């Protein structure tokens, strides 16, 4: 039984942890694109990558004084630029073109930062490690002793505590911001683009504004993942990243303000819990799954089978997600 209690503790840490915040932000951005405006963006990983490298590269290379705050300013500029570049060729086309171009653009960026040619600036496949050192020194100490533990939920150090508090504050702030923008004509474009156009709305401009705003929020997601985990690795921003954001969105309910938040917390609880329990059941100690079924190396990626199967089943049987509104769920965007 204590196996399960431990795993629940790890699951709760996961639900509130840095990954949950980062994916939540990326999913909020995707909600603006897909949920409110009906843009089929499959390149949220690209926006997150731009955000992450925007905060990490100035620190690593000492650009503009090498401060983390410079990186946040750079993030807004770079993600906007990326959105505009993506939007110009695709926003006038059918939605599946946007999907393919955004997925391709995300992969292009990932290949560019992974190539050893520019290892000096990007760190290539190793990424940029422990770039937060200088910044961490400025975080006030709060935790006495070496870690903070509430029941079985462990927060290892002050910096992680800071990242979690600031991260969720950012989630709250951006959720409210998105909520206040929801009355904009984005949703009329989603419902009927031609009708919106015939009423004199500049559909292209509204789509572009949606792509930019959702992209910036996605960039913040990448930045939080980079800072909170203290490193940037191109492997974190594969197309899988985008698909997980969709899973989170579907789980929490598409086109709902709290959808990404609830979705991300549930998603990361499930992932962390299942990882922990499977690791516990394959460690050769106490209860164990038969080895023909699963061993240590298999347990590490079993989460993806749960995620993929869960995403498919959820869309088929409960497309509005756990708290979604069936009327609002707007999958069909072409």
């Amino acid at each position, binding site marked *: 039984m204590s196996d399960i209690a431990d795993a629940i503790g790890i699951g709760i840490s996961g639900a509130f942890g840095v990954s949950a915040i980062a994916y939540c932000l990326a999913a909020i951005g995707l909600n603006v694109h897909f949920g409110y405006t009906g843009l*089929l963006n499959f390149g949220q990983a690209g926006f997150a990558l731009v955000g992450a490298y925007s905060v990490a590269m100035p620190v690593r290379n000492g650009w503009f004084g090498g401060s983390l705050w410079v990186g946040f300013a750079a993030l807004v500029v770079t993600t906007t630029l990326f959105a505009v570049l993506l939007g110009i060729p695709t926003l*006038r086309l059918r*939605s*599946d*073109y946007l999907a393919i171009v955004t997925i391709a653009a995300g992969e292009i960026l990932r290949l560019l930062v992974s190539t050893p040619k520019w290892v000096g600036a990007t760190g290539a496949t190793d990424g940029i490690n422990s770039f937060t050192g200088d910044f961490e020194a400025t975080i006030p100490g709060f935790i006495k002793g070496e870690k903070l533990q509430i029941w079985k939920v462990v927060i290892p150090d002050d910096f992680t505590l800071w990242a979690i508090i600031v991260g969720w504050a950012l989630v709250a702030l951006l959720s409210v911001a998105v909520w206040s923008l929801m009355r904009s004509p984005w949703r009329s474009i989603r419902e009927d683009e031609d009708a919106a156009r015939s009423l004199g709305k500049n559909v292209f401009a509204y789509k572009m504004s949606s792509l930019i705003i959702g992209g910036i929020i996605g960039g913040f997601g990448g930045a939080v993942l980079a800072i909170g985990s203290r490193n940037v690795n191109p492997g974190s921003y594969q197309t899988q990243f985008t698909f997980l954001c969709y899973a989170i969105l579907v789980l929490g309910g598409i086109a709902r303000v709290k959808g990404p938040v609830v979705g991300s917390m549930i998603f990361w609880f499930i992932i962390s819990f299942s990882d922990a329990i499977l690791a516990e059941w394959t460690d050769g100690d106490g209860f164990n799954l038969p080895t023909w079924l699963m061993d240590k190396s298999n347990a590490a990626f*079993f989460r993806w089978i749960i*995620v*993929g*199967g869960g*995403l498919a089943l959820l869309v088929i049987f409960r497309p509005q997600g756990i708290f979604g509104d069936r009327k609002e769920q707007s999958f069909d965007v072409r």
Partner: protein
Amino acid sequence: VLLVALGVLVAAGAGTAHAEEQELTVRVQNIPEDGGKKQPVAGVDFVVTGPDGAEVASGVTDDKGVAKVKVPSDGEFTVTIDTSTLPEGLGIPDDEASRTVNVTAGLGGNANFNLGAAGPVEPSKAELLPKAIVNGVRFGLVIAIMSVGLSLIYGTTGLSNFAHGETVTLGAVMTWTFADWIKVSNSTTGFGALVQISFAATLGIAAAMLFSGGLEKFVWKPMRGKGIGLTSMMIVSIGIAIAARFIIQWRYGAQPKSYAQFGSQENINFDFGPIEFGVTPRDLTTAGIALAALLGVAFLLMRTRTGKAIRAVADNPDLSSTTGINTDRIIMFVWLLGGALAGLGGVIFGLDEQVQWNMGTRLLLLMFAAITLGGLGRPFGALVGSLVVGLFVQLWAWWFSDFTDLKNIGALAAMILVLLFRPQGILGKKERIG
């Protein structure tokens, strides 16, 4: 000599100075391949550069193959020999012609260069071009058999099927597994190996068809029946793709595997005057099979009743069902055909390169690029698009030989550019797509 003497004097006089001049010894020698005595090499020019890249000294080796130069301080210096001054028949790999030495105060530093027999002259870019084009066409044909299926599925159902990559992987992985089970041994070669792989490939392709057709029967057809939209179906296909990919990894393992029995083959050389290239029998056979499969699909689409029906359904499903075409049967046929082609593509790609649990996923984006380039939903567009993608990838690797890890970018960027200027794709119908 005067300068060196002066240098020594200065060094002696300014013994307490912060940056003290040090001696660096450069030695160039030839180590014969037969293991004979080392021979000094005279008359080799070299330059010494400091950490900032500025030249601080240069020299020529003497009869003993040795040159001593002064560097302004201790620290790290880079010695680069001028390979054009090496005697005929001797050479050194590019990455060894330059080395960084640590010069320590008082002891100086040593840089030794060991030459060997000159390697074969690197073929020029122009000489490599025919090979790059052949590789591009071969790769294009492989992408084409996979993406024709993807395009037919898109054409008849409107679904961008993200699980198509896993159909490819499944065909390749099952073929490898069956070949491994029935193998007499990995040393089987020639005709025996061919029979073996054909038998295994038949089973592997059947598995891919079963996967593709099974999804149609148990997922896509019921979803269409419930009136669930295409975007939902696309996201379901992503979920299925992720789950299937990791189930394959779970059962098959993460290690890439290759067909050793076709591993090392002699090139068959083709010589058309100035254009010369070599292809292994394996690559020639797989390209031939891919071409035959594509011609078969073209024949099926253009000349048979089923093909006509497929084109009719792709054009307008409602209209074609009122004319008596059994739309569901045609769609099922397309899924089976798409599965078979994807499986065959997987087998061929596995033979050409390696069989790995994520091979299909890595190819999926190129397939999408191909069908978008050619015009979404047009099977012949998929063929043209695939050849463009294959050539772009291989020509990128040929032209930017320092950036081969980025070769997929060429194809993806080409797709984005084509969309900018010709959004309907190369062969697409001009219609309103906005």
